[in-house]
């Protein structure tokens, strides 16, 4: 029962709120477009190549015209007036233009000389028709009424020179190119509104998805709250998914930070107790205590790194900004790195210099450089190249000649605890947080850190720091 009820609901619910369904929207809009197109086509095919259109005349206008015709006949027969006299009679001439068309074009007459725009010969083809209203581009004519006069047979037309033809007639009388343009524009506008209406939420969704995948967890799709169709529902579902994602990730990060913070107190006590034990133990039995101390220090370093990464990621690190020469910071870091490299028989090669003052948190910049350099020294074979350059921004490139990184791992390298080998070997030391710290520290200065492999082998880390912000 419930199943059929459910399917009933989905089958017929669109009848209640058709505007909630994309199907209906597509249907209606498509329909409108087709109707519009067809109407335009009918218009186009309706255009006679001439500039005239007519309709049957009836009602008071017809009677009026017949009365005029009789009047002229009576005047000609009873008062024996010539046709010219009748037509040019001042009383008539003041009124509408009258036109008497004869089978011989030379005998055709009019009550006044019409203005040059009025082409009376257009009326010739209507002579054998019943009385009509005849629309042309510049005037409107009523007629013909046959009149038999002593001079011969005439067709009477009354001509309204100043009359603008009604809208539809005007449309009909429009030149063909204008009609085509109007039809094109109309269907274009219609289709444009249609497709934009359809595509806009999809575009919003797309942009939000791109931002979200770039790590901006606050990105949401803009959805009109009054919209109820499938796309709006999809957009709202996407937004709630993003909210969920944001909460989960921030909860995970906070957990990591909280745990690390809580680990500190017992670690401090552990170190203290080790110190006490060292004092009471004879020199020769110190090996294990030294080992405990070393491990405690390693743990301490990891906790500090985790906390620094999470603070940087959460942007809660208070930057202590100072104006400082970049070269001084670099030299300082290079001195330590030089020492480290010498111990492992590797060489640091430095190209260029950066004698420029920047406004930065020097300890953060130094720790970024230190971490990148330490990484490079660890994985290099023999040489580490550091290239310093200054153009539109400050560039620091640090390359090693080690094995490099598999291309699919390049972007993951800056994630906390990511290691290239799945074995997670600890022989190389380090906490797996160095590059994450570096990337976040550079990002905190509005700079960027990118990785790429170098030919023939080796990894390059390119740090770019903006200039404009510094000055």
């Amino acid at each position, binding site marked *: 029962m419930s199943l059929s009820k459910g399917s009933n609901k989905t089958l017929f619910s669109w009848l209640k709120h058709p505007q909630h369904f994309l199907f209906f929207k597509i249907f209606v809009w498509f329909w409108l477009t087709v109707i519009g197109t067809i109407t335009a086509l009918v218009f186009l095919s309706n255009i006679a190549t001439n500039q005239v259109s007519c309709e049957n005349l009836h009602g008071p206008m017809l009677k009026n015209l017949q009365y005029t015709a009789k009047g002229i006949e009576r005047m000609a027969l009873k008062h024996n007036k010539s046709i010219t006299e009748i037509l040019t009679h001042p009383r008539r001439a003041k009124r509408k233009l009258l036109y008497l068309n004869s089978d011989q074009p030379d005998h055709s007459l009019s009550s006044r000389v019409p203005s040059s725009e009025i082409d009376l010969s257009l009326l010739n083809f209507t002579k054998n028709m019943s009385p009509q209203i005849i629309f042309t581009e510049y005037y409107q004519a009523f007629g013909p009424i046959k009149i038999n006069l002593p001079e011969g047979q005439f067709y009477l037309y009354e001509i309204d020179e100043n009359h603008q033809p009604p809208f539809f007639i005007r449309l009909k009388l429009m030149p063909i190119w204008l009609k085509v343009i109007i039809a094109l524009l109309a269907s274009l506008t219609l289709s444009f509104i249609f497709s934009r209406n359809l595509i806009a939420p999809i575009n919003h969704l797309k942009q939000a998805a791109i931002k979200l995948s770039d790590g901006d967890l606050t990105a949401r799709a803009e959805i009109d709250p009054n919209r109820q169709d499938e796309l709006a529902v999809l957009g709202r579902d996407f937004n709630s998914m993003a909210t969920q994602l944001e909460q989960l990730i921030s909860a995970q990060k906070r957990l990591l930070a909280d745990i690390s913070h809580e680990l500190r107190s017992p670690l*401090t*006590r552990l*170190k*203290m*107790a080790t*110190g006490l034990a060292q004092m009471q133990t004879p020199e020769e039995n110190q090996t294990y205590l030294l080992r405990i101390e070393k491990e405690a220090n390693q743990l*301490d370093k990891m906790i500090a790194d985790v906390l620094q990464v999470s603070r940087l990621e959460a942007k809660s690190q208070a930057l202590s900004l100072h104006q400082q020469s970049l070269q001084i910071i670099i030299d300082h870091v290079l001195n330590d790195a030089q020492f480290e490299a010498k111990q492992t028989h590797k060489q640091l090669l430095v190209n260029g210099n950066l004698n420029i003052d920047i406004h930065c*948190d020097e*300890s953060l910049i130094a720790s970024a450089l230190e971490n990148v350099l330490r990484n490079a020294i660890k994985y290099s074979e023999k040489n580490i190249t550091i290239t310093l350059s200054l153009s539109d921004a400050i560039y620091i490139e640090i390359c090693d000649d080690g094995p490099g990184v598999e291309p699919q791992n390049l972007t993951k390298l800056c994630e906390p605890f990511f290691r290239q080998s799945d074995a997670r070997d600890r022989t190389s030391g380090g906490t797996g947080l160095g590059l994450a710290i570096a990337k976040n520290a550079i990002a905190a200065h509005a700079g960027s850190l990118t990785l790429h492999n170098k030919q023939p082998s080796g990894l390059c880390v390119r740090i770019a720091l903006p200039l404009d912000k510094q000055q």
Partner: protein
Amino acid sequence: MKLLMIDDDTGLCELLSEYLTAQGFQIECAHNGEQGLKQALEQEYALILLDVMLPKLDGFEVLKQLRQKKLTPVIMLTAKGEDFDRIFGLELGADDYIPKPFNHRELLARVKAIARRIEHITSLANTSSNKLTVNNIVINLAAREAYVDEHPLSLTGTEYEVLALLVKHAGEVVSKEQISEEVLGRRLASFDRSIDMHVSNIRKKIAEFNNAERIKTMRGTGYVFIQGE
């Protein structure tokens, strides 16, 4: 020599008292800010170890209230890496800081540096009054006091030491490394701003009475106390 430790971590307090007692110090503990402040004000301690995160009254508040009455040397125990904490602490008049979790040897070295300083004073106090005068600043080495135009400056122990060192070497550049080693008893860590903070505190205190620039920063090297006008 009597020390006070204000920290809510009782386990750490026990271990630390055991360690420092073994090194010949006498140590008392307080486990919350309120009690710690009370003890610090009532009794005379050679040094106070003050944690930042404390129940009832946090470390900064304790320090602020203590400094209104006393200049007992204070070492702040801060969580490592939190830059803001230590700078704020130094601004409030802490003498130094040790990031937690600390190494017991490092802690001992700091405590000893301050102890040495105190011994040094007592030995000076016994000799005849020893005064240094440069421009309008007078340093009374015996009484550990400094005056600007005869106004006494209320300097913390570390600030006094830094100023005295600069005045002793008036006209010469004194490097930050030298200041750190002589005054704080430790090597200057890279990008450590604590000496700058102490100097900035001294400048502020001098400026209360005299606006003339006395201590000049030599960028990248250190500080000079200006001799002559």
